[in-house]
């Protein structure tokens, strides 16, 4: 039953992700991306992390996809424009991304995260929050700095465009 659900969610995620790239209409592409995120949320639920799934939905679909849609509708190309042509660069990109994903996967599986027990089935949210905010507090703050850097970068870009 779980395997079947996993296969279904994985199928939806992958197919929707491919559609997101290949769709001729960018709005359809953005919505496919949203469906793909829904599939990821389903996978989180199967992993007993429904809390993460709720935030996956609210942040990635409720905010990220909406902003993409917004941008596409306001400034994107007209309906019917074909997708970008296949270039050698995309092949290079695919190799690079596979390498990075492989590295991240290897790191995640081989690193022994010290401190707390692994959050298993019926995960205790309080344990999760103390782990995140107390044991790995500094790492969390550093991750937040990455987001802050992104915001500062976006603001700089927006200001630079205004000057021209």
């Amino acid at each position, binding site marked *: 039953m779980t395997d079947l659900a996993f296969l279904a969610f994985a199928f939806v995620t992958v197919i929707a992700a491919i559609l997101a790239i290949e769709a001729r209409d960018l*709005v359809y592409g953005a*919505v496919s991306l*949203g469906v793909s995120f829904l599939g990821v949320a389903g996978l989180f639920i199967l992993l007993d992390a*429904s*809390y993460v*799934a*709720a*935030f996956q*939905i*609210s942040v990635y*679909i*409720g*905010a990220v*996809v*909406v902003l993409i*849609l*917004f941008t596409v*509708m*306001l400034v994107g190309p007209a309906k019917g424009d074909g997708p970008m042509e296949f270039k050698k660069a995309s092949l290079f990109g695919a190799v690079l991304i596979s390498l990075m994903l492989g590295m991240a996967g290897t790191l995640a599986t081989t690193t022994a995260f010290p401190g707390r027990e692994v959050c298993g089935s*019926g995960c205790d*949210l309080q344990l999760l929050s103390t782990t995140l905010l107390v044991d790995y507090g500094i790492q969390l703050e550093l991750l937040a700095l990455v987001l802050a850097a992104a915001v500062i970068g976006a603001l700089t870009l927006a200001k630079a465009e205004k000057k021209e």
Partner: protein
Amino acid sequence: MAILTSPLFFKIAVFPGLTSLAIIAALVTWLDRKITARVQLRIGPSYVSPVGGILQSFADLIKLAFKELIIPAKADKFFFVAAPVIGMILAGGLVGLIPFSPETQIANLEVGLPVFLAFLTLSPTMVLLAGWSANSKYPFIGGLRSLFQQTAYEIPLWLSAIGVVMMAGTFDLLKIVEAQSTGWFIIPQALGALIFLITITAEMERIPFDLPEAEPEVIMGWQAEYTGFLFLAAQGAGFIKLYVFSALFATIYLGGFLGPAPVPGLVWTLLKTTVIIVLIILLRGSFGRVRIDQLLRAGWTLLLGLAIANIAITYIIIQGIPSI
């Protein structure tokens, strides 16, 4: 046949699921029209029924369901049909998370409140898609307004709900109700409840925050091109939301099904929900529409600031004043 007699099937099909949802949404529509009419010194619906035109919205429902469905020639047909329907399903599905009484809850999730709010964030997306797909000026403006509005209310909404979670120590809606057996959260969380009420009114697109469908400004906004059944779906979603959000408010702030013993818990929940519905309808009768810039400024400064202050107040209520 065993599935037809199972309690879960009854809950999904009858109460609090589909059948009751349709009937209650129709009754809420009637209540909305009747109360607004009385506030404006009119009579409101009065013909179709034994008492006070109570069957008017059922008559409208039948009328709209049999009307011709017109899809504009240059519309994006898939999203034009899918967006309002998915929007209504999203709004209706949320009723499954509300504990009307310990026995009548369809899905008891450990993280009920975040899941509820997470699915809420999807409905402005559907409004945007609906507005865009009509390929027409006013619907598109309405869709974009819905998005702007979402950026204004979404963060204060989540932050005001955090106060309740801090008090109860859980995300589980059933346990949140049980945690209120010593006192309803509306008293320590008065500020949070006020912000929550304002932000859910904005989420429901009701006056004073009905900018995406403001009739005098953008002629019904994103709903302008809809006819027949799709118009019913677009309108119905609003009234389903009014019912479901009021039930959520009653659950997390007014003690849900808790109440003196002889009256069953279910009745208490519905009673409290009705009070909130009437309050929100009275807001519609009492206030004018705000401008989009006013709403955005209020959302990002006043509501956000107050919501953060509410978290600080809640911390002091729970932990006492921190000694530095």
